[in-house]
């Protein structure tokens, strides 16, 4: 099947080079005519490098100048830097065997690495051939070479339990049925083809009396699974949706970080995982695997050196001209970046939804954390030693735990089997963290209020709790609100890690967009700006609250009020005594 794909790709790309079919070429590569000229340039380059051994270079890249033409060539580079998808245990091991000198950095998504390789920041990374091929369609500067990997089976992974086995067995019968009827191939064709209108997945709802299953995936691996129009789509998703619809089961898809996919299955959080997972020995041992529904070879992505990189340094006279062109090009490229980041596939919906999730989690966590922090603060102020000690222990533990780790513990350990929504886990996690900081803040604020204030209230006949809320707390709030505000802003920013537990917040939305546009600058900068705007807005709200607590402002309001009241008779008499 792999061969079939290569053959197909060759045909398509060979077709591109035929001058009488220009429409097809732009169609396929979704690119401007400039690509054609690059290709012409590439042909010239090819002439000079024809002596190089090109046996590991797929036919469609033979006319390009690749940074490396074989693994052996890569091995000659002493400072080789490779990217690696976090969680690719088997590939990682193999890569280290093939390229022992390489320095390997770990990344969360393929598109990020594709972007870095295309820009020459990384020398290469290894992933499934269709994934890199798909990335190459979006990145004119990305190609790949064969790395000598055996083709691997792509499978679905089930927990090693009775429930997992029975679901797997059921799935296997359908996979075989689809294979026999040729349906597998036609789904392949659909997702590796270019008819975008048909690339839609409908996850089925359960028929009456049938269960709904939770499927974990990591939608950063186009064309197998990725986000389009705000929905998880892709070859594997389509296949699973069709099979489950036929079985009558409901299917719920959960998009989580790649390294969390298997974790989620092992802890029982999800019923199975489909995320371009291949049959490695480790998987076989610890999980039940379905029959293969796709065979993929792992290949090495490498940079295509285009004319920009090859061009000698510009002469002095030309420099200003080219600067002007660059500037004009900047506006145009920003425009197209904007369109790609927000307009295409209605990606703005991802962003607005992400903003909402970020704000929602921030505010709920702050509310929960404030209440919790207040209780802990009361414990801290308690004269009972053990209560104080418990509060101190809580604060020290929470202050010493990274929020990501706390969040993962809550999601994958504490609440793993409860089926509680990730958003609530996030609220609890951030709230617990926020509470620890807020309690100390409140305590210092309360201790800064003169003891005499409490005594005076008690002497007037207030009960202790009432005196605390009526007299001490408002004064303490004036002390701690400015610090609280800062802590709240850091909470807003801290929520950017919720992607770890499968929540699509603003950061995750920008990750998803980047995985589709293969672009880093625009989505990241706009995300930063949006975070700034959210923080600014929330700061304004808190500042307004703070002003309400400021007594001199309230006094001025009272003064205005009383002046308005006094004005009446004076105005009246003023009008009555003109003569």
């Amino acid at each position, binding site marked *: 099947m792999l061969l079939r794909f290569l053959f197909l790709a060759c045909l398509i790309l060979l077709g591109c080079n035929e001058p009488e079919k220009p429409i097809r070429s732009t169609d396929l590569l979704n690119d401007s005519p400039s690509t054609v000229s690059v290709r012409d340039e590439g042909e010239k380059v090819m002439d000079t490098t024809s002596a190089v051994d090109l046996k590991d270079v797929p036919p469609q890249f033979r006319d390009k100048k690749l940074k490396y033409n074989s693994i052996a060539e890569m091995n000659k580079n002493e400072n080789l830097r490779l990217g690696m998808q976090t969680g690719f245990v088997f590939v990682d091991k193999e890569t280290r065997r093939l390229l022992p000198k390489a320095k390997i950095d770990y990344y969360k998504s393929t598109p990020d690495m594709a972007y870095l390789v295309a820009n020459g920041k990384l020398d290469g990374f290894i992933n499934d051939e269709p994934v890199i091929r798909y990335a190459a369609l979006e990145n004119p500067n990305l190609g790949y070479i064969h790395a000598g990997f055996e083709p691997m089976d792509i499978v679905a992974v089930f927990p090693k339990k009775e429930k997992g086995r029975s679901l797997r067995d059921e799935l296997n019968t359908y996979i075989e049925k689809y294979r026999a009827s040729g349906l597998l191939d036609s789904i392949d064709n659909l997702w590796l083809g270019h008819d975008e209108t048909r690339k839609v997945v409908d996850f089925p709802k359960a028929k009456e009396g049938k269960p709904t299953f939770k499927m974990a995936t990591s939608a950063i691996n186009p064309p197998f699974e990725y986000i389009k129009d705000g929905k998880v789509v892709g070859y594997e998703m389509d296949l699973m949706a069709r099979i489950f619809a036929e079985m009558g089961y409901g299917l719920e898809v959960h998009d989580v970080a790649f390294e969390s996919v298997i974790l989620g299955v092992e802890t029982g959080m999800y019923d199975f995982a489909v995320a371009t997972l291949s049959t490695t020995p480790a998987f076989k041992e610890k999980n039940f695997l379905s029959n293969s529904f796709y065979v993929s070879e792992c290949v090495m992505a490498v940079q295509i050196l285009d004319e920009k990189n090859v061009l000698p340094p510009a002469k002095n006279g030309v420099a200003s001209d080219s600067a002007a062109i660059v500037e004009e090009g900047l506006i145009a490229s920003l425009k197209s970046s904007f369109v790609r980041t927000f307009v295409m596939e209605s990606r703005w919906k991802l962003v607005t939804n992400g903003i909402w999730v970020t704000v929602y989690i921030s505010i709920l966590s702050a509310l929960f954390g404030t209440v919790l922090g207040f209780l802990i603060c009361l414990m801290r102020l308690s004269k009972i030693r053990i209560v104080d000690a418990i509060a101190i222990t809580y604060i020290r533990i929470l202050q010493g735990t990274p929020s990501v780790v706390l969040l993962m513990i809550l999601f994958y350990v504490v609440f793993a089997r409860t089926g509680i929504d990730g958003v609530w886990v996030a609220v609890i996690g951030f709230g617990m963290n926020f509470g620890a900081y807020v309690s100390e803040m409140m305590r210092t604020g309360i201790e800064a209020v*003169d003891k*005499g*204030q409490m*005594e*005076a*209230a*008690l*002497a*007037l*006949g*207030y*009960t202790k709790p*009432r005196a605390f809320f*009526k*007299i001490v707390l*408002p*004064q303490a709030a*004036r002390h701690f609100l400015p610090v609280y505000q800062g802590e709240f802003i850091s909470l807003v920013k801290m929520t950017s890690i919720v992607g770890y537990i499968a929540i699509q917040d603003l950061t995750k939305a920008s990750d998803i967009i980047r995985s589709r546009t293969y672009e880093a600058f625009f989505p990241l900068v706009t995300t930063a700006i949006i975070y700034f705007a959210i923080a600014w807005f929330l700061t304004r709200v808190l500042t307004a609250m703070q002003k309400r*607590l400021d*007594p*001199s402002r*309230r*006094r001025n309001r*009272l*003064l205005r009020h*009383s002046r308005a009241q006094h004005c009446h008779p004076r105005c009246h008499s003023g009008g009555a005594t003109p003569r």
Partner: protein
Amino acid sequence: MISIRHLKKVFPNVTPLLDVNAEIEKGDIISIIGPSGTGKSTFLRCINRLEDPTAGEILIDGKSITAPGADIPSLRRKMGMVFQSFNLFNHLTILENIMVAQVDLLHRSKKEAYEKAMALLHTVGLADKALDLPEELSGGQKQRAAIARTLAMDPEIVLFDEPTSALDPTMVGEVLAVIRNLAKQGLTMLIVTHEMKFARDISTRIFYMDQGVIYEEGTPEQIFDNPQKDRTRQFIRRLKVFEEVILPSTFDYMGTVNRLYAFAEKNQVSKRMSRNMLFAFEEMVVQSILNRLPVTEEIHMVMEYSGEGDGLVIKVEYGGEALNPQDGMDEVPRKFLELATNTIVHNYSGGKNTVELRIR
């Protein structure tokens, strides 16, 4: 109205109240005076339970407020307290300070509370400051506002805890004037104060507290004009006291002289007077008494100095047979001694000699 029985308060390292007993009647205006650190404030704070007494009983109108389960907030509502450091609520305006407890605790309407507050602010002369914040007021104004806040609750008794001690001398008068006015209206008051003239003028009774008890109590005339006990007198007259017990067998002449010097220096006794004092001590106590006294007897010497008029008095007390030190004294020292002192009085009764010298 208030009965205090065997009140005792122990802090981890001091015991300010040992055994305090007192009866306070309606309409009493009692000033509590005494040296610093003798538990005057603690006594006041125990009465409204800002401090928990270690032992003893406090009855208000026959009801114990020290018994477990006593409704302390409602008892406190009958008792106002004015603090040394005012303790106005910093986040509220003066008007709100006076209104808030009325509305919250006495369930008065805002209008009633407002009218009451403004009336009180007029009587303490702060009506124009109603909308100011505490931080914008001077110390004296703050204390007057605090008194108004206390009075707004219509207390049956007001406890004043050193109301003028934290004030500039220039502001003491305005606060005392407000309290004087209250005294005229017949309000029951307990005032811890260091303002002696004020205490004498307005009080019906004076408690002199010392050594953890009410050491002496009486009318202002009794306490101020005719105190019965030495410590009371020393306090009232603001006497500085030097006390030493001299044993003939272990007498350290230089040590005592040095301590006398230090005493004179510390209390700014004039040069002439301290020279005379030392001369009198030398001739009288050392030469005329110590040298003639049986070795087994001891001499109790007390020296009292007051900056205001009373001058320096040396009192010497010793046992044995009647012994007037002036008898058999040489002519020259006697003459000099007469020059150094105003009077020398010797008494002998009950086996005790007392000599009192007023130094010139």
